């Protein structure tokens, strides 16, 4: 069966059955992080720094400990010393050592018999601080007079003479840049800034942890990756990974922000100190916004050369990003790699700096780095197209990366679908809708690598012929449905006969989290392989019963059948019959596959948005929004569309109104959804979607990841649309009404 033949008639792949977790979710039966309780449970509260940067002189918990019902207080002194690298970063972020590094940085934690008591006790913990100068903005943090956040953090890559807050430098490229610019008819350079934004998942971080003096522990937690929780908690606590059993809860959104730890070790450390009683720790929204990973903020320069026919001859980018006070947390490397990935440009050069600032430790957020890079590159591209009188989508198509081309970040592309995506975009009816006054249309393209990664999946045939699949990738967007569909398709059985469980760390080999848009791709690939193993066993059982060679049996429509007329005449033996007898025919039948999945297929997308800008208030209304993206193959199209729409919505929020507002004192002023303005449902039209299918040859059903690419084009698409509607170009996010109005007024003054 040709793997890339779109006409392949699948029975289930490409249909839209109900999701297996749907009933639990709509009836409230699904158990999220905060829903897990245990007998004897204590509740925890965290003491957090009110300062952006402050030396911790003294912590006095005596008043808190004097309260009846307070069972434990922990500080950094309760944690092992001597950690290095990212383990140290994780420990330091879990609980500050000598210095609190950002507003909201945890400095102590309390466990008590009720949540209210724990909160009261936390307020009684006295912390004496010596306030230090702080820096929030990425450009300011590089200035010679910027306060030094942690001297000696920088690695060997940083050129001499730079401020100690610059901790990492990256450069790469190919081709002759100067020759490329010389060949161009138009060369333009511009600078751009994006603000940090939070993933904004609806479920705050929550966990229940238990650990005894013997170092054996249990944790129930809302996470995208139970093995990451296990490894990181063990490193921070100095315990052994396999002694900690981590069970993921149902998850109310993560978007990358739940691929790491923030407060989970606190629950375990408190439990250990409180004699092994389980400890529940649930963050408030304010804690989530102050102390869990947003994405990085960025300051970026782009230079591009273009011929009058739209050919891009050369491009260079220089990005500065801060991801908080810890090295390695900003996605500057990814941003550089994504910046020019949509295009085949003969000469490219990338430079990037990672910078420390007094902000929370950044975490992954949906295509980390790519949206910022796209904002800079796709905005400049749009400007240059207009200057040359060219159609921006046609220019993108002209320069589009294709199969066999060398990618801007090094490798050679295999089969990719950017051309098909752009063609489908240009043909879409939305582009023909006439626009009125103060309205404008903007387009942009975007890219994400996608990821394979460490994957382990088991599958077992039940005694009634139904099937259980155990996977290690938490279901953030319908992956249980997609995995069930691929398994059922492969086994030739009903979708409803397969149950997919997300299992705890004791049940499988190490799995990476659900990140990099990999769950349906990698767990799917492994589930299909595991199903094939089970099929081989079932064929063997049938062969033994029929007294023929195993090779003479094949699997068809959920049953073993003789391979041809020469094999003998036997009626099909169904999976239910084989399952019913398996105890006496050789024992349980299962399949298992583990792999560090390669064969990943990049996903490209293009968005087109129509906006109307109120020229008197600067307020932008999104009138129409189109997402076109290559899915490889959409296993469950509804959940693919959901990912496209979700990415667009998060991008719209980032583009228009989301921002971290800091006071002069370095404190976050809008740590609540009332003032951290993510879009509300009534802000947006229905997001139109087109699924392009250029199958990924590296996956049995052609899957590419689809979760992340959708957040990359919205930032520039909105900027381009606002420019078209108003004649003013915004190069700094968010494009909130005050900024848009100020730009309109400045433009009117001339």
């Amino acid at each position, binding site marked *: 069966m040709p793997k890339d033949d779109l006409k392949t008639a699948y029975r289930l792949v490409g249909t839209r059955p109900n999701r297996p977790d749907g009933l639990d979710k709509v009836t409230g039966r699904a158990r999220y992080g905060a829903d897990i309780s245990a007998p004897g449970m204590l509740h925890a509260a965290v003491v957090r720094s009110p300062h952006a940067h402050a030396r911790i002189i003294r912590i006095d918990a005596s008043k808190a400990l004097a309260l009846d019902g307070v069972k434990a207080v922990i500080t950094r002194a309760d944690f092992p010393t001597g950690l290095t690298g990212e383990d140290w970063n994780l420990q330091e972020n879990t609980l500050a050592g000598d210095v609190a590094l950002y507003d909201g940085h945890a400095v102590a934690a309390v466990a008590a018999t009720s949540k209210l008591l724990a*909160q009261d006790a936390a307020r009684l913990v006295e912390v004496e601080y010596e306030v230090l100068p702080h820096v929030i903005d990425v450009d300011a943090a590089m200035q010679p007079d910027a306060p030094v956040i942690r001297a000696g953090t920088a690695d060997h890559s940083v050129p001499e003479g730079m401020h100690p807050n610059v901790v990492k430098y990256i450069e790469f490229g190919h081709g002759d840049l100067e020759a490329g610019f010389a060949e161009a008819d138009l060369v333009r350079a511009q600078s751009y800034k994006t603000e940090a934004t939070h993933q904004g998942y609806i479920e705050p971080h929550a966990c229940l942890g238990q650990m005894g003096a013997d170092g054996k522990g249990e944790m129930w937690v809302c996470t995208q990756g139970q093995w990451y929780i296990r490894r990181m908690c063990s490193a921070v606590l100095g315990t052994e990974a396999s002694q900690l059993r981590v069970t993921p809860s149902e998850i109310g959104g993560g978007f990358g922000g739940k691929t790491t730890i923030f407060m989970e070790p606190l629950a375990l450390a408190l439990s250990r100190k409180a004699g092994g009683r389980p400890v529940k720790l649930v963050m408030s929204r304010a804690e989530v916004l102050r102390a869990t990973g947003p994405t990085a903020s960025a300051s970026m320069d782009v230079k591009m050369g273009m011929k009058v026919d739209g050919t891009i001859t050369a491009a260079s980018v220089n990005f500065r990003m801060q991801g908080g006070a810890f090295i390695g947390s900003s996605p500057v490397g990814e941003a550089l790699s994504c910046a020019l990935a949509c295009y085949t440009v003969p000469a490219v050069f990338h430079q990037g700096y990672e910078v420390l600032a007094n902000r929370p430790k950044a975490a992954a957020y949906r295509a980390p780095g790519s949206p910022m890079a796209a904002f800079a590159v796709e905005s400049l591209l749009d400007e240059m197209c207009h200057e040359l009188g060219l159609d921006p989508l046609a220019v993108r198509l002209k320069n589009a990366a294709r199969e066999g081309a060398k990618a801007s970040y090094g490798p050679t592309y295999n089969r990719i679908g950017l051309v098909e995506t752009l063609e489908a975009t240009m043909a879409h009816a939305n582009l023909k809708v006439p626009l009125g006054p103060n309205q404008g249309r903007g387009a942009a393209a975007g890219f994400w690598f996608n990821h394979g990664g460490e994957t382990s999946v088991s599958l077992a045939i039940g005694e009634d012929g139904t099937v259980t699949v155990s996977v290690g990738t938490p279901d953030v967007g319908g992956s249980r449905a997609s995995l069930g569909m691929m398994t059922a398709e492969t086994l030739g059985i009903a979708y409803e006969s397969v149950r997919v469980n997300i299992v705890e760390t004791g049940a499988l080999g190490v799995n990476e989290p659900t990140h990099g848009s990999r769950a349906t791709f990698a767990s799917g690939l492994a589930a299909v392989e595991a199903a094939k193993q089970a099929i081989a066993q079932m064929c063997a059982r049938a062969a033994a019963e029929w007294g023929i060679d195993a090779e003479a049996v094949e699997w068809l429509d959920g049953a073993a059948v003789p391979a041809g007329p020469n094999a003998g005449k036997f009626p099909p033996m169904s999976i239910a019959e084989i399952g019913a007898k398996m105890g006496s025919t050789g024992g349980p039948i299962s399949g298992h596959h583990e792999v560090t999945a390669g064969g990943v297929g990049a996903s490209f997308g293009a968005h087109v948005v129509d906006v109307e800008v109120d020229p*008197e*208030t*600067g*307020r932008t209304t999104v009138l129409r929004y189109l997402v076109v993206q290559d899915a490889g193959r959409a296993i469950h199209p509804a959940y693919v569309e959901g990912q496209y729409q979700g990415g667009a919505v998060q991008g719209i929020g980032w583009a*228009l*109104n989301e921002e971290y*507002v800091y006071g002069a004192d370095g404190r976050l*002023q*809008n740590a609540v*959804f*009332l*003032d951290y*303005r993510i*879009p*509300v449902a*009534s*802000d947006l039209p229905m997001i139109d979607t087109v699924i392009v299918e250029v199958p990924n040859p590296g996956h049995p059903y052609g899957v590419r990841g689809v979760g992340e690419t959708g957040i990359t084009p919205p930032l520039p698409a909105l900027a381009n649309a606002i420019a078209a509607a108003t004649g003013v170009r915004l190069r700094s996010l968010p494009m*909130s*009404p*005050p900024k848009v*109005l*100020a730009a309109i*007024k400045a433009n009117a003054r001339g």
Partner: protein
Amino acid sequence: MRFHTPKTFEQAAAIAAGASGLTRFLAGGTDVLVQLRAAIVTPDDLIDLKHIPGVKDIARTTEGGWRIGIAVSGAELGRHAGVCADWPGVVEGMQLVGSTQVQGRATLVGNLCNGSPAADSVPGMMAAGAMVSVIGPQGNRAVAVEDIPAGPSRTTLLPGEVITAIILPPRGAHGGDAYLRFIPRTEMDIAVVGVAVNLRRDGARIIEARIALGAVAPKILLVPAAAQAIIGTALDAVALAALSAAAIAASTPISDKRGTATFRKDIVGVLVQRAARIAYTRAEGASA
């Protein structure tokens, strides 16, 4: 914390007057309970007013206006045909408060007494010329809504005083009112600027006007100078420009996380014109 459920306003006032610590009345609770949970205000005495008979009623006054009970929610107000017909600006201000869930609880009086400079229903009430009936240790009094706010989170009510009802005046002939607020999103946001305009026409000419501005000063303002800018005019371009100028001149906004001072001044000038146009059109349609 002590929780009280008095059966009369006299009892409620007496409990409040006798209380020594922090006291809060409970109407819809959408401010009180949120502040309690966020540990911003933890009252020593919490006095629930919803057990007092009549607090959910809306009734005609003998003068032909409306008497609105202190526990009438935004959703209930929005379904009252009489009030909606007479005072659409007051109703639309209240209906902007929160979400569907919040609308089921939130009240006009709570919005007023919470003391936010950005409260959405208050400019409309001020522009309408609404009064509140107050009962307290010194007896009963009637107070104009514009005399209640004293600054952020503060009112002029004396300790032990409680509002028993909101009184909207008779609408009268050829009148119209309107409220507009600016937020960057479409809901679940706090007004960056709020503007209410109430006017009466004689033919094309405006003969009476009251204009109130929210979120541009420490408290919500009634701005007579803005009203004067349009009284006697047919809301022509000159009048509209004078109206904007007067509204901007009266505004002393701050820059904060919700918007800059410059932006707020720009917006108040824009919204006051837009609200005036709506009120003017509504007044034309209004019969005697």
